[in-house]
């Protein structure tokens, strides 16, 4: 695995506010890193420092092994960047804008047109090829930004909220595009849409208040929840107490609690001891005692809940 993006102890203050505090991360070829965090957590600031638009107060970043601080031009050649809000020159058409990008990326003659056409086709822009960018819808503007970023087939792609403002079909297209390109690139996308992490990212980094609070695959993050791998089940309300007593005797069960009573049924949640799989033994024990189970499933934990758990300060205070 070749490491293509390296950030080393990046730090940035705006006045008294510490926007990014000691963030280090690496992304290897083939990885798609989902950069998550609440608004104002420092996602965009971190990306701006990695791409060389902002100078860090401390730390450095390397793109394809080239230091962005000491050789910015060399590093930027390997970089495709979609800034927040997908800015583009409003008075140009996608055709002239992409031709400009191709020229500045060093292409000549017929290559300029070929590159611009290919990028526009990938991003689905050909329908609005000759409309001024300021007249385009938000979704098309975003696609112009994406086309601009992938035009030179860069080794490193950094995109700040690439699917923001797109309708579900367009979101799907962009995700497919990212997935298709991910094999030979290192990609960072920032997002606050958690399904996106499940859909395209091989890894997720959650930052909060300028610090990394979690780094792992979507499954790693989900396993942080207490109810990860817990068993939820529903029995007739008369059988609730008996079921609880039965389950508590099953090996590997940490504890059992009632979650809700409704419509003559009662729901229970069974928490396992660490590294125990309890669905089968619990089901077997209930059957042995003749208790009818109306429903039984293993809870996986939702990424939203993980996100809330590690970034919601109010929740933390309430629990403390």
């Amino acid at each position, binding site marked *: 695995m070749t490491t293509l993006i390296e950030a080393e102890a990046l730090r940035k203050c705006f006045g008294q506010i510490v926007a990014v505090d000691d963030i280090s991360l690496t992304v290897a070829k083939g990885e798609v890193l989902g950069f998550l965090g609440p608004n104002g957590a420092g996602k965009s600031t971190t990306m701006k420092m990695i791409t*060389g638009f902002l100078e860090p107060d401390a730390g450095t970043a390397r793109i394809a092994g080239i230091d962005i601080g000491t050789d910015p031009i060399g590093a930027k050649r390997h970089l495709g960047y979609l800034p927040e809000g997908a*800015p583009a*020159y*409003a*008075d*140009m058409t996608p055709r002239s804008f992409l031709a400009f*990008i191709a020229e500045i990326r060093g292409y000549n003659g017929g290559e300029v047109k070929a590159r611009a056409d290919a990028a526009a086709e990938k991003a689905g822009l050909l329908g609005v090829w000759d409309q001024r960018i300021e007249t385009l819808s938000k979704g098309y503007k975003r696609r112009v930004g994406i086309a601009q970023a992938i035009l030179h087939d860069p080794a490193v792609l950094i995109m700040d909220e690439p699917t923001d403002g797109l309708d579900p079909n367009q979101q799907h297209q962009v995700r497919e595009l990212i997935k298709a390109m991910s094999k030979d690139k290192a990609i960072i996308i920032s997002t606050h849409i958690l399904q996106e992490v499940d859909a395209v990212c091989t890894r997720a980094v959650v930052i909060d208040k300028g610090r990394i609070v979690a780094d792992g695959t979507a499954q790693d993050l989900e396993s942080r929840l207490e109810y990860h791998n817990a068993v939820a089940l529903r029995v007739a309300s008369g059988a609730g107490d008996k079921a609880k007593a039965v389950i508590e005797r099953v090996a590997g069960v940490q504890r059992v609690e009632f979650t809700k009573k409704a419509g003559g049924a009662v729901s229970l949640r069974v928490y396992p001891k660490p590294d125990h799989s309890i669905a089968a033994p619990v089901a077997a024990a209930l059957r042995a005692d003749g208790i009818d189970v109306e429903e039984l499933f293993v809870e996986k934990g939702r990424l939203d809940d993980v996100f809330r758990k590690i970034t919601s300060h109010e929740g933390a205070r309430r629990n403390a």
Partner: protein
Amino acid sequence: MRNILIIAKRELGAYFGTPLAYVFAVIFVGLTGAFTFYFGNFFENGQANLAAFFLYHPWLYLILVPAIAMRLWAEERKSGTIELLMTLPVTTTEAIVGKFLAAWGFIGVALMLTFPMWITVNVLGDPDNGVILASYIGSFLMAGAFLAIGSAISALSKNQVIAFIVAAALCFLFVMSGVEIVQNTAKLFLPDFLVQAISSMSFLTHFDKVARGVIDLPSMFFYISMIAFFLFANVVIIEQKKAA
């Protein structure tokens, strides 16, 4: 060099892709004509030269050049395209010089569109065309100096109105520093050498020589160094904002 030209080409396209270019050119040509004939008493002078025409250029530039310059960087910052431009493989200097050259070239085009004045004076009399050419070059260089000041100021703010007002005020100071009232006021509380220094920075004093048709090398050098200095300041401001 290649990048400078690509950026300049894009910028020029932006001028002519919007009404900006046409509005500016029409107003510039219209105003120079109006000033020459109404205030400059072009006909009453009875002289076959364009002195009355060039006389008002500093005052026109004072308003019109900051209007061109204000958008150079303030707009990039406001629309966020500066983030795009600065993460492309171009240096800050290339971006600044490219944008400057486009705006300067555009002002040059507007200046050339005043050619009917030159035809008029050649039809009416027998002017010294060498003098006229020298004056045009001087006027163009002065416009460049105004523009460099405006470009640097534009990099300070994302608000174009602020950029316009501050740049116009600063240009006004540079124009006025040669006028007697300013000189006399300065003499009251400043040592002689400073008064001299201020006066030597005056756009007006330098342009007077140019408008008389003297190819005055120190004056040409003055405008070129003003351009170089303020473009350098422009680079410093952009780099500074990157670190802030």
